Structures are given as C-alpha cells and as structure tokens.
C-alpha cells in the first residue's frame, strides 16, 4: 500500500472515530480532582418548530434541574431522529415527548415489562426492569373487573415512587375549521371522518374533495403502518387500513368481522372470528382468513422466520404479545387463541389493522442486522382495505384519497352496519395538504384553501384562529400525554430516588394553564402520572414550588436525603 493511500485511510479512520465519539450521548462528567462527578444531563425533545409544548416542558424541567445544581440543557432533536434515538437506539438521558396514550391499562405492559427492554418502539425504551412490576403487569393481564382495577391501582402507586417515566399532562387536540362545516371538534377517527364526509358538506363544497391541513412533510412519502418513526399520520393509516373490530363511541363495533364468539379454554381463551362476505383489498384482491393469519405472523416476526431470532414489528407489539396463535379454520373463519382468560384484555387484539399477504410477504426479507424490509420500506402506494384508498400523492405537498366504493360497509343492507355510513356522501375524496407550519395552515383556512386542520395546532395559535374570519376553533380532549422519560441504563438515572425527585420538577398545573393555554388537563393522581386517563384514583400530587419554579431548599434537601451531595452549589454523585 502506498504511503499516501495509508495516510488517506488513517485520516478516514480518525474522522470516523471522532464522529462516532461525537455521536454518543451520555451523561458526561468533569472529574476535577474529586472522586465524584458533577451531574450533567441532556434533555432530548423536539425543536419548538415540531412541538412547542414539549419544548416548553423541557425548558421548565431544565430550569428546575439547574436550580437543583444539576447541569441540564435541552437538546432539540428533529422528530424522526428523536424517535430513532429514544425508541430504537436508546441513546438518551431524559426525553420529553408526546406518547400516543393508552387504550387500556395493559398498554403499561409493553412499556415497562423487563422482557421487552431489548425491543424497539414504545417497548420499554426506559430500560426499566423490576420483578415486582413484571409480576403485576402479568397478573392484571389475566384478571378482569375490580380485581384487575385493584392490581393496576397498586401498581400505579408503586410506579409513581419508582418513576421509570412520568406523565406531565394530557393535551387537548386543538385545531381549526372553516366555520360553515359546523364542526366543534377535530375529526380523529375513521368514523368521525366518515361522518364529516357524509353529513356535513356546505353547498359550495359539494362534490369536491374534503381538504385537511397537516404539517408532516413526510406523510406524503411514507405510509408504513407497522413502523414507529411516524408522527401525525395515524389517522390516515386508520382510514386506509381496517381491523376486524373497531372501537368507536359505541364501544366495540364489528368492522370487517361480522361475528366474534368467545369461549374460555384451559387457563386461557379463544375467539372464533367470522369475516364479512365479499371484502376486498384496494387492488381488488379478495381479503381472506389467510390474510388475517398472515398479519399476526408478520407482526410477530417481520422476517417470517428468515432471521435467526424473530424481528417483531414495533407497532401493535403489546396487543400482538397477547396472541398465542392464529389459525385459519375456513376461508372466512379464523381462530385466535390467547394465554389470558380475560376477554376485556385480549379483545383489543382484534383492533389491529389487517395487512394484505400478497403485498407484505415479499417485504419479509432481512436487510440488516435485526432489520427487515417490511419495517423500513416507505409503502408509498399503500394497499389496505379501509374506507378510503390512496389515489395520488405529490411529495411534500399533498396526499389524495378517494372513497373505496367496493368497501363492504358502503353496501346497503349489510348486517350490523355502523350507522354513520348511512346517506349519500357530500364530498368527493379527501385531500391531505401539507402546509409549512401552523400559522400558514390558519392563513390557508382563512383564504378558503383548506376545510380544516387535521394536525395539532399549538395553543399559541388560538389568538390567530380567533381573529381569522370564517374560521372556528376545534378542541377535544385526548388520551395522549406528554411524558418525561428516564433512561435507566444511565448511571445516575438508574437510581429510583433520583428519578422520583426529577419527576416532581415540573409544575403540571402551570404547564396546562401557561403552555397549553388551559387546553388540557394536568396529571395528578397515580394513574394519571402514568398516563392512564381514567380508572385509577388516589391522592393527587403537589408541585414543590410555585409558578413553575421549584423551591430550591426543598429540592436540594430532597437530593441530599437521596444520597447526593453539593460542592460549591453543584450537585455531585
């Protein structure tokens, strides 16, 4: 090898090494001649362009940590990278982000069970592992009614003290619409979209597409329903992909299934699911029991057995782990078997959207270590079985959907048809339009270029909405919540006493009144502090300070009690 080539390679090596060293985020310390280290933490959070509410919570937390003598700085990180580093590579100290929320307390199981801490997605990103917690999470899975409620309540009290993460507040989904649409809350589910589509066309909009504003540029290019790097596209995927059973305001509603019968088995349970007649995918292929079986297999292992160990899909993981087996018992019948005897827990598995075997089977290839094509491909021409199908998309600008007329639920006279699909549609198709930011979305609305904003408007834009002509404000409470997550893989954060104190350093009432402009509700009870919006009561928690500023004496003595000490006002481990 020539000297110049060797020099070149050495140079490349040096650059690579320094770049890698720069990439590792960790608690870094300055050991200045003492045996202990000053505590420094980085708080990962989306930049305020992406999520001003998260950014403001992180700001308050950083401020209060500094009051406590800890060197804490927010580290703004673009949303896709934030998901990557917290949910996939677990490279963070503290994260402030919005969690989609739980539809059932069993959602805590994938989030905190030690068995899942090596997995990707919202599967124990905190690296938390405690036997007591694992046991309780497994117990509630097999229980029902009051017994289960009690187990969850006890678990909640325990988790507030050990604080693997802490919920800050439940934000309302605030948005805006053209006043003549007569909406009072933003549509969030396929049934709400359908209702709008059917019932509410103002005269001058009849026969035209319904135009919804979004800010996520990526949604025009990436519509993978089993990946987790997506944000704000949930509703689109719900319109495109249908499950067997849906949860609507009326509870569990038969969707692609027309009959589900439950029976207990030895220690577990079983559901026989019967598909409706004549259901097809958007490309015309018929949807059969085999697709149902395939979906369950793919979610459990996106390599379909090709990889050495299974590569599960990070989305729907909690629900998928409840299923023991899915088998086809006829062209339109499938048997789901579960280890848990608790119908109230396992019936949620039927709400997982179905994927077409003929489209996804070829994607089940391993492309990298523990990564499959199915998890990474963009799926920019999605084939689902939902009420709407994608017809066209312009990268970074718009995504056009049309009603899938062959959908079985659009036919008259079918049994158990959801009421909302009665009547004649007033609009023709749905168009998601990407606008640069919330301000320009409101301007477009005012100028009649949009019918409503589907994305979340930061509350600071409500003044603009109020002033805008012909525009009304929409608001609805949600299950989703802002959380502060701790990476227990890091030294100081592995200490539950420390996490518990940090979990008290945000003034939740203040966050809601000042940062959310009152549009949301603070987490107070043990259940709420875990992100469970209902069902678990208990004594509410008080913020040790006022107006968002923590009481310095309180936090310093609390940290000293927890075994830390101060040198020149700085906290040392």
């Amino acid at each position, binding site marked *: 090898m*020539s000297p110049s080539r060797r020099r070149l390679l050495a140079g490349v090596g040096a*650059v690579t090494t320094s*770049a890698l060293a*720069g*990439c590792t985020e960790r608690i870094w310390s300055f050991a200045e001649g003492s045996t202990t280290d000053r505590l420094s933490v*980085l708080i990962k959070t989306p*930049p*305020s*362009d992406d999520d*001003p509410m998260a*950014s*403001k919570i*992180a*700001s*308050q937390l*950083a*401020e209060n940590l500094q009051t406590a003598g800890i*060197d804490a*700085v*927010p*580290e*703004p*990180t*673009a949303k896709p*990278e934030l998901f990557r580093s917290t949910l996939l590579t677990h490279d963070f100290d503290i994260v402030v982000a919005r969690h989609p929320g739980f539809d059932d307390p069993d959602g805590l199981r994938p989030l905190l069970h030690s068995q899942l801490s090596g997995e990707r997605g919202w599967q124990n990103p905190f690296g938390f592992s405690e036997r007591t917690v694992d046991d309780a999470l497994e117990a509630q899975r097999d229980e029902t009614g009051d017994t289960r409620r009690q187990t969850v309540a006890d678990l909640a009290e325990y988790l507030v003290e050990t604080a693997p993460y802490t919920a800050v507040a439940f934000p309302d989904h605030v948005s805006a619409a053209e006043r003549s649409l007569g909406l009072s809350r933003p549509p969030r589910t396929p049934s709400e979209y359908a209702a709008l589509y059917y019932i509410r066309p103002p005269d001058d909009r009849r026969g035209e597409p319904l135009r919804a504003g979004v800010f996520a540029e990526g949604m025009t290019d990436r519509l993978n329903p089993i990946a987790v790097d997506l944000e704000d596209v949930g509703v689109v995927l719900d319109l495109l992909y249908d499950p067997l059973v849906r949860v609507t305001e009326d509870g569990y509603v038969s969707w692609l299934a027309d009959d589900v019968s439950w029976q207990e088995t030895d220690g577990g349970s079983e559901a026989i699911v019967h598909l409706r007649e004549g259901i097809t995918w958007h490309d015309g292929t018929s949807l059969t029991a085999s697709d149902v079986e395939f979906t369950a297999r793919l979610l459990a292992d996106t390599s379909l057995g090709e990889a050495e160990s299974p590569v599960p899909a990070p989305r729907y993981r909690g629900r998928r782990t409840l299923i023991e087996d899915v088998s086809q018992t006829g062209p339109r019948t499938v048997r789901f078997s579960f280890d848990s005897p608790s119908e109230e827990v396992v019936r949620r598995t039927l709400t997982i959207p179905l994927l077409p075997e003929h489209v996804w089977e070829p994607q089940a290839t391993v492309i990298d270590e523990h990564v499959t094509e199915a998890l990474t491909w963009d799926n920019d021409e999605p084939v689902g079985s939902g009420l709407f199908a994608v017809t066209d998309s312009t990268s970074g600008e718009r995504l056009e959907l049309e009603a899938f007329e062959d959908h079985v639920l659009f036919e008259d006279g079918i049994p158990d048809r959801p009421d909302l699909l009665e009547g004649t549609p007033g609009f023709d198709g749905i168009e998601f339009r990407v*606008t*640069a*930011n*919330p*301000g*320009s979305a*409101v*301007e*477009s609305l005012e100028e009649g*270029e949009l019918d409503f904003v589907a994305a979340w408007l930061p509350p600071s834009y409500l003044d603009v909405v109020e002033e805008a002509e012909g525009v009304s404000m929409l608001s609805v409470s949600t299950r989703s919540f802002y959380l502060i997550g701790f990476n227990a893989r890091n030294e100081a954060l592995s200490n539950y006493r420390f996490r518990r104190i940090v979990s008290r350093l945000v003034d939740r009432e203040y966050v809601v009144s000042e940062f959310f402009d009152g549009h949301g509700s603070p987490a107070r009870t043990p259940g709420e502090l875990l992100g469970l919006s209902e069902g678990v009561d208990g004594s509410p928690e008080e913020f040790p300070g006022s107006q968002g500023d923590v009481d310095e004496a309180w936090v310093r003595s609390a940290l000293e009690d927890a075994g830390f000490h101060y040198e020149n006002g700085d906290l040392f481990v």
Partner: protein
Amino acid sequence: MALVGVVIELAVVVATMLLGATLVIVGPRQFVDALSEFRWRVRACTLPLAVLAVVLGLRWMTQDVVPRLSWRVLGHNVTPQIFSLEQTVFGTNPVAVLQSYQSPEITAVFAFIYLYGYAFVLIFPFIAYFALEKMDDFSTLVLAFTANYAIGLVCYVLFIAYGPRNLDPVLFEGLLYDAVPRAYYLTNTVNENTNVFPSLHTSLSMTVFFLAWHTREKYPLWVPVSGTLAVGVALSTMYLGIHWFTDVVAGTALAAVSVYIGRNYTIDGLLESARRFLATQAERLGQPGGK
C-alpha cells in the same frame, strides 16, 4: 402556490429597492453604458459564475441527503454546547437581551431587514460591480460568495444546531414566524432549521460590507448603506430568535475568510493549480499524466 405568492411579493419589493439604489449609487449613465457593452463583461465573469452555480447546485441536489448524513453519520448536535457556552460567557443570553426590547414596530423592521434587506444587500453588488470599468471586483464578489456557500455547506454537515427559538421557546421567542408565518415557506425551501451554525445570513451580508469597504473609492455611498444593512441583518437574526450570537460571530469570521479568498485567488488560478497538482500526483504514481 403559497411559495409562489411569497416569492412574487419579495421580488417586487426587492426589485424596487434595487432600482432606487442603482439610480442613486451607480447612476443611470454608468449603468446604461455598462449594459451597452455587456458582451465582454459577461464573458469575463462566466467562469466564476459557473463555479458558483455548481456549488449552489450541489447544495440544492444534496439537500435531501445532507440532513440524513449529518444526523446519522458525520454530524454532532452542538445546540446544547452553544447554549451552555453563551450562558457561561454572558450570563444572560444576548438573544434574550435583544428580545427584551421587543415591540411590534421593532419586530416589523427586523423582519423587513431579514427578508427584504438581506435579498437586496446580496443582489445589489452584482449590479454595482457589473457596472464598473473592470470586472475584477465582480469576480472577487462571486468567488467570495462561492467560498461562503462551500464552507457553510461543510459546516452544516458537521454541526447540527438549532436556533434559540427551537431550543427553548420559553426563554426565546420565534418572532419571525409569528409575525410573518408564510416566511417559513421561503426560509424552509432555502434552508433547514438545523443549519444555524454559522449564520449564512450574517456571513453573506458581512462579505458584501467588507467588499464595499474595498471598493469605497468607486461607490462611497455603498459603504454606509451595506454596513447598516449587514449589521441590521446580523442583529435581526438574533432578535428574531433564529441565530445565536455564536452563529453571528462564526458568520462574520466566515465572511472574513471568504473575502480573503476572493481577493487573493481567482477561479482561473485555482483551477490551474488544481490541474498542476493532479498532474504531478499522476506522474508520481508512475502513470501517464497530463500533456
């Protein structure tokens, strides 16, 4: 559509400013004379302009790849370090100090300077130096701009940094996009919100000002005008919460380096030495070199 609207408005306003400045600073006679012999002038600056176009084209073409390369491989998120550094040096962040003087009028003035003043200060020297008897100053300007963009691009790959408004919206306000939401179409089309270190707004405006000083005998009036605008642009980037003080300092340093390159090198010279370097390298490797 919205982008087109914003661009047209920008174009109309800036064109008016350019027309006024051309009449006052260059003078109608000199400008018309220059136009009448545009052929040799264009020929003289074709090469530098082509190189600038290549660098700009490279930026344009790599805009999808660069953020990915930066986040995943080469870059380091230096936002917390910039924030901590300024905290240590100043106590109160300079951006917060500037924003404490906030009023709707000041915001309007700075938003105008940031959007329109900046576009004007960048384009006018092209007209002014084109109207000079020799094209040397024009070539210097083009090479200095090229250096700004090229070095800036490398920095943006290596340093991921968000501006004050993105790090902490409680301490710092994002005044520009609150005042002119549609400006985001423009700035976001031209740039990513992670490209703040160094401030290219500052470096390009300062480059124009430094060059104005060197041509003060030809256009004495342009020195105070460009100076005021350059300082105004630098202040506006901070006041509007887009850049840190550190970015502005780095931008000014980049301007100094770029002006040095622009005045001491020429594109012909650079290409010639590159050709010679490659030829000797080729010979050393024992392969048939250039002619």
